[in-house]
């Protein structure tokens, strides 16, 4: 389990989040929702141990993530960033192989059979097994996102944290990406995913955390959080709730929501 206690996160002198206590169980899909600038990316990087909190502590299975050696931390938690990057002349295998760094001594550049197996397995898990020698730069946005996820899977960490993995993707590709992540949850990994589409969270997440107004406004199982007032509180708009034909809760901004909800 990832346990974050009493986190205070700042961007320069600006307070992003204060007094955040959040639990992420293994084997569950946790979605993080909140408006732009709420501190979702900063929280995710803090949970991954890539940045330190201004105060508070993050523990993975009882060990302070910032006290872990970088390689040990990478074997516990993988982070998939949201920013695009231009990688000329790198093949898909070059990119995914980077996930094996934490399984070697820092100066060791030999690729072993278990590394090849892990890379092949990760590519198969995201449905990209035929792309191993393709140039990364020639892939579509959806394919690139799959490769970033494959990199995280090749790390063989217990938790995978993803920052907006479905942004800029069409509906079908987004659903496929989330299905891949869901399959990793079934395989026992803990998945934390920053999402902008509330209904993607409703469809795929076991738990939801809502950030807004400098705090963690709600966390809990998906149906409970979506039924409560945290979304209106976070986004400042009224929400309408309906049920899909399969009984799933669906949440949409109310049509008369041009007026912000009074806080």
């Amino acid at each position: 389990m990832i346990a974050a206690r009493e986190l205070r996160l700042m961007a320069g002198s600006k307070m992003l989040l204060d007094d955040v206590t959040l639990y992420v169980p293994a084997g569950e899909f946790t979605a993080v929702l909140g408006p732009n600038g709420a501190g979702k990316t900063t929280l995710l990087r803090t949970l991954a141990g890539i940045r330190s909190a201004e105060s508070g502590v993050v523990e993975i299975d009882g060990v302070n993530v910032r006290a872990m050696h970088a390689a040990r931390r990478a074997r516990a938690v993988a982070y998939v960033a949201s920013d695009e990057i231009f990688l000329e002349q790198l093949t898909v295998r070059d990119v995914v192989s980077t996930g094996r760094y934490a399984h070697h001594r820092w100066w060791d550049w030999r690729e072993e059979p278990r590394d090849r197996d892990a890379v092949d397995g990760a590519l198969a898990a995201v449905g990209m097994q035929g792309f191993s020698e393709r140039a990364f730069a020639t892939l579509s946005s959806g394919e690139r996102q799959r490769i970033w996820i494959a990199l995280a899977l090749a790390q063989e960490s217990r938790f995978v944290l993803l920052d907006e993995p479905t942004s800029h993707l069409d509906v079908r590709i987004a659903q496929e990406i989330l299905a891949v992540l869901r399959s990793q949850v079934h395989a026992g990994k803990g998945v934390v995913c920053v999402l902008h589409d509330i209904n993607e969270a409703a469809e795929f997440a076991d738990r939801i955390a809502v950030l807004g107004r400098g705090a963690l406004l709600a966390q809990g199982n998906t149906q409970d959080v979506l039924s409560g007032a945290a979304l209106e509180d976070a986004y400042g708009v009224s929400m309408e709730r309906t049920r899909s034909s399969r009984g799933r809760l669906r949440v949409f901004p109310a049509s008369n929501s041009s007026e912000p909800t009074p806080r």
Partner: protein
Amino acid sequence: MSARLAGLLLLTLAALGGSLLVGGTWLSPASVVSALLHPRADEVATIVWQLRLPRVVIGAIVGASLGIAGALLQGMLRNPLVDPFLTGVSAGAAVAIVAGMAIGVSSAAVPALGFCSGTATAIVVAALARRGAGLDPTRLILAGVSISSLCSSIIALILTHLQSSDAAPSIVGWLAGSLSGRGWNELAFCAPYLCAGVLLAAAAVPALNALRLGDVRAASSGLDVARAQWIILGSTSLLTACSVTLAGTVGFVGLIVPHVARRAAGSNARYALPASALLGAAVTVAADAACRSIAAPTEIPLGVLLAFAGVPAFLYLYLRGSRPVTA
């Protein structure tokens, strides 16, 4: 990929061999091989063993060092326009050597003077670029450019006051880069630092591959980014300081060679670093042979010839419609 590295190795060996043949006096391959196998006190053996071989070996080491240093720094900063002199090593070494020559320091002390000043300047640049436990790439570039500019101004000031001095021509020659007059003593002085630089570069290969994806993704993959940055900067500084000590300011090799090497061998540092070393050695040795031969017995400065060849090569990489390969 191994075949391409083997091809570069053959190219380098051809450049080394060919460079022993040409110069003020043309030597036949048979006479060079004979002189190498049977060192005698004749004129050919003297030319080969005392003049050309040390020069060819040092040229290869200088080129390989600059190629590796350029590939390391371009990879770490993810910036294909960076060259090893960015660390301020060459400018720092140049100030000390020019000042030393101006006040009449013994020529035997010049290598040590240049090496110490170059590494000290690199430490100052690194200190200015430090952010937290690691290095800020933007600060590193700004600090390197600023310190190098300051050093260039000091050199210009010294040269202004030395226009009529006997030392001025040798100072200008050194600044333009040259392998003339270099021998085993200079190489012996640099050998330990060269070994340390190459070992650090080899150890940095996995880190360099992780850094291609950016600092955040590299850190997420388990890389201690700060440690990797210091190792790469340390290796770059040692290799550059040695090359400056041995040959003065030899430009363009550290900038151009890594681009061509990546095109030939790919971006994987496992292949790109050896390819940069081999190509750097081949280019430098071949250029030095041309410097000795084109206007013999007068020598063209190595740095000047490399700039004449390097600028068109650099422009070609851009104007042919494809950008230099990302580091």
